[in-house]
């Protein structure tokens, strides 16, 4: 029976490995075109006028389709030209038979194919590392709350990210968090080296693997941690940027063609200048710089000579500009990768050459293969560790130090014994750049967040465990993301009419009003004053009279099912609890102190009453709950009453940390205009 033929595991789509620029260089032309193997999905079928439903004789999988699937919808509108470009039909039999369209700069349908292939590859990398389906950030309409003055936020599931491959006419591309859309630009190049690129040629950002992967990562992080777009610390925006670069960078290493080529060219020494370490090749060349735009390993100096970057322990303390600060993190992670890679490759080199030195002649092709494999393995491990760490990060105000601790803790939970020295490699690379995580002794044991066993009241912990197991049972096997979303929300909220208690109510009952108020507050970094009046004094909201505690929000509840390298299965629930307060300050020149009597409830205090020196301050925690033991496993918290952090946020947001902003159009104006990412990537500095 032909209907028994299973759906294919992959959709094979041709594309550029890096960007079109490399196809015109003899040395790199062969490795630059590759076939992306994208996990098969049913794309939205085209309506076929007149065609009756054929009662299953022809499976849906062979219908003509639009470039819109479970995660993305590509809408190719070019507003500057006033044209809509026809959506590519990736299910056309001819395209199915020849791995999609031939790479071409002048064919907009190929552009759609390229964007689809790279975005889906990036999404897949996240899902594999996180052990669950990814969600985009929610759409949030605001409506007046019934019978209240304040506005209520409503959260709506967003199934598909909207993708516009030709939205802008500038050397820029960005993720717009309000539109839930990716906007790619195109522009005329003005390269430093006319041999590589024709001056005046059109460069499309939607054809660059790095740019696509980078922007997709912004959207993915926004879906995981909505609060990370808030600039509350010099690290927050820089982290967004750096992480997006890290994903783009390590994705290169999953392409065997590119990898083999570069390993052969550098004779296995990836510390040398190589294409894999450079982001956004063509983009960088087109606007007149040398080499890639953001180069993790090194950069060309004034005379066009390539130099490796030398880490400096002062880097972290001194560099405040967002992209430069981001580069510190990229360099640290790349450094860790190189250490891991080199320890693997040294063996191979010794076998091949008799000593561990880099050989001088061309490498044997078999050796190139083996080295490429080692690089691919190291890279995919590093990428997975980096992504997985996101589950161990606090829900807001992330610093590099927090991230380092998240990396180490997440890896510790997955791999009990660090035989390959991964964790040490990371710590060393971060330490070299002055990133400490506020821990004096940079030992692995110190950086791992402590276990929380026994820190909750046993009975309460049990009932929480029960509730979360129910969650696992009801959503653990759902495959539809919208259903998954709706069900999770429902289990958080509960249903008063059906007298079904939600997670929110449960926490309030068993911890906040159940006698362990103090203990729970200490553990989570939240505050639970006894009554409405006390809450208001602290700037905390007490939403309804019927509530038993100051308001707090459950941001995320995620299941994480992961198989460890040792074959164990980890069953965790990750959830975040968040509170917010309005904080006023007493400012005297550069001396800033929290005004202890000036806290205000943000949502019920109009802008005009907040005074000039205030911030909206958030605190809370990420809880990791182990479903197997029914125990709270780890807590990563940012205290809501941390005055030091309040002052730091104030200073940062008011430019007192030595960061200079563009003064004509304030950066705030720019950010709010099209989201924080719109202007971070326009290269004016």
């Amino acid at each position, binding site marked *: 029976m032909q209907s028994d033929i299973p759906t294919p595991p992959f959709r094979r789509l041709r594309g550029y490995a890096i960007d079109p620029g490399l196809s015109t260089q003899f040395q790199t032309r062969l490795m630059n075109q590759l076939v992306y193997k994208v996990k098969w999905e049913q794309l939205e079928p*085209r309506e076929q006028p007149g065609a009756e439903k054929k009662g299953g004789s022809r499976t849906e999988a062979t219908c003509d389709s639009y470039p*819109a699937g479970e995660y993305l*919808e590509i809408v*190719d*509108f*070019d*507003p*500057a*030209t006033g*044209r*809509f*470009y*026809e*959506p590519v039909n990736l299910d056309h039999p001819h395209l199915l038979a020849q791995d999609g369209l031939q790479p071409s700069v*002048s*064919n*907009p349908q190929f552009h759609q194919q390229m964007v689809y292939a790279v975005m889906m590859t990036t999404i897949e990398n996240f899902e594999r590392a996180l052990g669950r389906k990814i969600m985009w950030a929610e*759409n*949030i*309409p*605001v409506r007046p709350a019934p019978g209240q003055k304040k506005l209520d936020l409503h959260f709506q599931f967003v199934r598909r990210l*909207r993708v*516009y491959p*030709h*939205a*802008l*006419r*500038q*050397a*820029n591309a960005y993720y717009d968090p*309000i539109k839930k859309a990716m*906007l790619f630009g195109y*522009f*005329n*190049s*003005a390269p430093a080296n006319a041999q590589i690129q024709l001056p*005046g040629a*059109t460069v499309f950002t939607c054809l660059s693997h790095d740019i696509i992967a980078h922007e997709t990562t912004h959207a993915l992080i926004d879906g995981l941690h909505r609060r990370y777009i808030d600039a509350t610390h010099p690290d927050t925006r820089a982290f967004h940027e750096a992480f997006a670069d890290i994903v783009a960078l390590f994705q290169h290493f999953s392409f065997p063609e590119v990898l083999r080529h570069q390993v052969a060219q550098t004779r296995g020494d990836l510390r040398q200048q190589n294409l894999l370490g450079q982001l956004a090749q063509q983009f960088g060349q087109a*606007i007149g*710089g040398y080499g890639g735009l953001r180069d993790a390993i090194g*950069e060309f100096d*004034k005379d066009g000579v390539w130099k490796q970057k030398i880490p400096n322990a002062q880097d972290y303390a001194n560099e405040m500009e967002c992209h*430069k600060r981001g580069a510190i993190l990229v360099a640290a992670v790349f450094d860790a990768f190189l250490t891991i890679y080199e320890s693997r490759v040294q063996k191979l080199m010794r076998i091949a050459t008799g000593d561990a030195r880099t050989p001088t002649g061309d490498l044997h092709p078999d050796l190139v293969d083996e080295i490429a494999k080692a690089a691919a393995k190291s890279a995919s491990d590093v990428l997975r560790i980096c992504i997985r760490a996101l589950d161990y990060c606090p829900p807001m105000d992330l610093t590099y130090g927090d991230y380092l601790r998240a990396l180490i803790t997440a890896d510790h939970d997955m791999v009990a014994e660090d035989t390959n020295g991964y964790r040490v490699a990371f710590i060393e690379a971060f330490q070299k750049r002055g990133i400490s995580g506020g821990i004096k002794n940079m030992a692995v044991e110190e950086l791992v967040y402590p276990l929380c066993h026994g820190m909750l009241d046993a009975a309460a912990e049990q009932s929480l465990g029960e509730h979360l197991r129910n969650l696992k049972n009801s959503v653990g096997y759902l495959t539809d993301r919208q259903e998954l979303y709706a069900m999770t929300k429902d289990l958080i909220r509960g249903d008063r009419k059906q007298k079904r208690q939600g997670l929110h109510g449960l926490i309030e009952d068993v911890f906040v009003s159940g006698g362990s108020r103090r203990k729970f507050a200490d553990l989570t970094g939240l505050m639970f004053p006894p009554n409405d009046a006390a809450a208001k004094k602290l700037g905390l909201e007490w939403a309804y009279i019927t509530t038993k505690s100051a308001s707090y929000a459950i941001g995320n509840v995620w299941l994480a099912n992961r198989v460890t390298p040792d074959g164990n299965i980890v069953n965790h629930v990750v959830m975040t609890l968040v509170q917010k307060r309005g904080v006023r300050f007493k400012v005297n020149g550069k001396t800033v102190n929290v005004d202890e009597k000036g806290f205000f409830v943000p949502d019920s205090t109009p802008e005009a009453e907040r005074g000039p020196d205030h911030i909206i301050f958030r605190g809370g925690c990420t809880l990791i709950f182990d479903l197997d033991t029914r125990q709270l496993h780890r807590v990563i918290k940012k205290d809501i009453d941390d005055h030091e952090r309040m002052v730091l946020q104030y200073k940062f947001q008011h430019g007192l940390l030595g960061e*200079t902003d*563009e*003064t*004509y*159009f304030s950066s*705030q*104006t*720019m*950010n*709010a*205009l*099209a989201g924080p990412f*719109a202007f971070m990537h*326009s*290269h*004016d*500095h």
Partner: protein
Amino acid sequence: MANEKSVDSVKVRMYRHGFGDCFLLSFYQAENRVFTMLIDCGIKLNTKSEKVPITDVIADLKATLTPPGKKFPVLDVLVATHEHWDHIAYFHPTKFPDFFADFKIGQVWLAWTEDPEDKEAATINSRLRDGAAALQVASMQLAKTEGEEVAKVAGLYMGDQAAKARADFNVSLNNVLGFYGLKSDSGITYKKDGKISVETEVAMTNISDKLSQSGDGVKYFLPGTKVDGRSIPSGVNIYVLGPPKKGMINKSTPSKGASKETYLGIDNSGLTSFVDGLLHLGMDKAGGSPGSQASPFGEGVGIDPEAAKSDPYFKHTYFSPSEKHRTIENNWLDIAGQFALQLDGAINNTSLVLAIELADTGKVLLFPGDAQVGSWMSWHDCEWKVKRGSKTETVTATDLLENTVLYKVSHHGSHNATVKDKGLELMTHPELVAMIPEKENSYSGILYEPLLDRLNELCKGRVLISADAKYPPEKVELNKPKQLSAAEWKEFKSKLVVKELYVEYTIR
């Protein structure tokens, strides 16, 4: 060698009419005024001082410059630094017809970028012109669609902030356009062979054509040259520092980092397609038809929005009524803000930069117009030969900066028009005084406080600001700054005249 007939003092009169430059320099041999020079006379739109009407300024100029027994004001040299409204507005022949029409002007000095014979200038000007025209189209379009954009985000979380940002942005954009004497609602003034904008061009043309008719005509100056000694009184050397001749003119902001120069100048901005797109949009509105270069894929590729509305896919995605907030018609125009700054910077960098040296003492008066970073950096590529007695000496930009005793602060004291290490930090002369023509709340980021702080340190408090209510020069005159010695204070006071109409300082 002191020459009896050498100029030994210069009075610099800074008028206080608002946010704009107007400086009258009078050169003296002992008690005799031997030479007069007016540097700029303009104002940014909507920044007039309430206290000092421009007519008073013009009246004072006429009174000061009309020789006894004559009926017409006589001016030896008129300098127009660059084509921005806040520098040349009042030379406009129809808006202000009776301001300068009766002046007898010996020479008009302009930068080489205004020279119609200069090919590089022609290229630069055509780029600037296209840019300004494009910007105006963008600004009009953004203003027109503001309501539409605000409606899109209404009712969404953070939507109120996005809406406010949109409004702020459009205001800022208009603010920049104010430098060209334009407003976004004033209609398209793009003219194929015109210059940057019709209004500033008219003013500039009036300077070079009409106002120069009474004397020797227009002189255009190249960087690295000196003003011919026959045009100026003895005892004075005038060095031309800018605008720079190659490349540097497009660099308006400081580069960060040691080696990376990823700035987008006007010529390599990557914004060509943006500008083209806007010009086509502008021509569309004016009844022209868009050319083929409008599309990156050539003509005939794709379908127009009307046809797309009935396409089943676009109908339920892009045109879905519930997803209006996800549409992108106008997002490509947002780069106009950044582009406006670049354009503004590029035009500022076309400023004629003059260093006026009193040969006897070596003291220098620095008038940089609105020169920004690129211009400053290029000064150091220049060298001048100058005769001192029987010897020929080489003068560098560093020498001139070290000997500067009066610094007319570039670009009204903004953050990117006074270079630190190769500029301000070299101005170490103990008599250094700074003058800033500027009015409060006229332009965000001006006055740039850190610059003002540093100026106050270097000048030991002798910083004179024309029209900023926060920093009145009357206050400078009243209180002796701590850093000044009693003798210095006495000396400074004796050279300073503060009036409602102007601030005048004498260099001796």
